[in-house]
């Protein structure tokens, strides 16, 4: 199953990836992100999503860190 995966952490990443059918938001996060889900804004199809939401073909999933450090 193909989804659009967006990781706004670090260098930023957005691409289509293959995930197993039945993959939940929590599983995808655990596989792809090294961090605490509470430190991220998690959106599926631009809407807030529950951890156990099962992803569907063509979904757009984005993880955006809520704390990003600026500089001077």
């Amino acid at each position, binding site marked *: 199953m193909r989804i659009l995966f*967006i990781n706004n952490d*670090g260098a930023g990443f957005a691409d289509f990836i293959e995930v197993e059918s039945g993959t939940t938001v929590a599983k995808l996060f655990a596989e792809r992100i090294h961090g605490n889900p509470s430190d991220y804004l998690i959106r599926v199809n631009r809407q807030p999503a529950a951890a156990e939401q099962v992803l569907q073909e063509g979904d757009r999933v984005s993880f955006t860190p809520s704390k990003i*450090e*600026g500089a001077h």
Partner: protein
Amino acid sequence: MNTQQRQLLRVATAIAQRYATASQSQAAIDLPADLWSQCNASLRRIEKARRRGWLEAAARQRGALMNQLVDLRERVAQSVASIQGMTAQRRSVSAADIYQDLQSLHDEFETVSFNRHENTLSAHTEPLRLEGVFLGPFEIRLDWKSLPDEPRYDIIATDPHPASCNEDVTHPHVSSGQLCEGDGKSAICRALEDGRLADFFLIVANLLRTYNSGSPHVSLDDWEGVRCTDCDTLVAGDDRYSCDKCSASLCSDCSRGCEKCSDYFCYSCTGECVRCGCSVCLYCLTRCDKCEKIYCESCLHQNQGNKCNTCREQEKEEQDDFEATTETVPVHAHTSI
């Protein structure tokens, strides 16, 4: 579809058109050679300060080097992202994608607005308070005509509470309306390159909601001003001086000029020559080896052996007395003891 939605769709269509017709010419790769030179210069200064035993100067330079290395890391990451962007084929950006992004912004921000005449798109944050310091709300204003190749955006404090020492600094990471993106730089670039406008606004807003104490324009600890080390009054930026020896913050009244070297110092780093009465810094002061009173270099330099006139005269008198005593005391007086 209501009027606002129709207007939003027009903006989305115009932005998508920008992406569709954007020049495919690729920007030159910018290697951070200038920053690397600055790092080397700082390293040389650290070595020089260390050789001369200037520990505080060495510590300051180490801090400067650390900041330069952080900037260097960001620039390297930017170069990597830039090359990756050239290598990867840009995904097509549809008006529908952008429209949905713009619609979703209303769920993420208190206010979203656009100006079709000025070609700007804005999201407004809630009033921000970082570590107890109130900074007010900010407008993130994107110039969508600059998309996608040369994106420009401004951070506008709509109810500004700038740093007392610099009115251009409205946020620890914003100066003159420009955000220093730090760790968010690459992600912001990628979001704008991909036409993910909602992600762009979210990343920038989260940057504004985060304080990096290691690298601010103005530290939040100093936002309202700095306490004068000598008199403890709050000093604003224009009136702030710094001791050239210990770097203590001073107000103009407490900043004491050295009459010999003309630099400025705090009370603890200055003294008064007991001979000529001039106020001099610790660098220009010398102590008499005998009485340990403080003299300026020129007053003590007139004497040999780092002794003041008084001590030298006293020594001379003692020596004369001793010699006179030795000459008058009979030999049998010694033998009777």
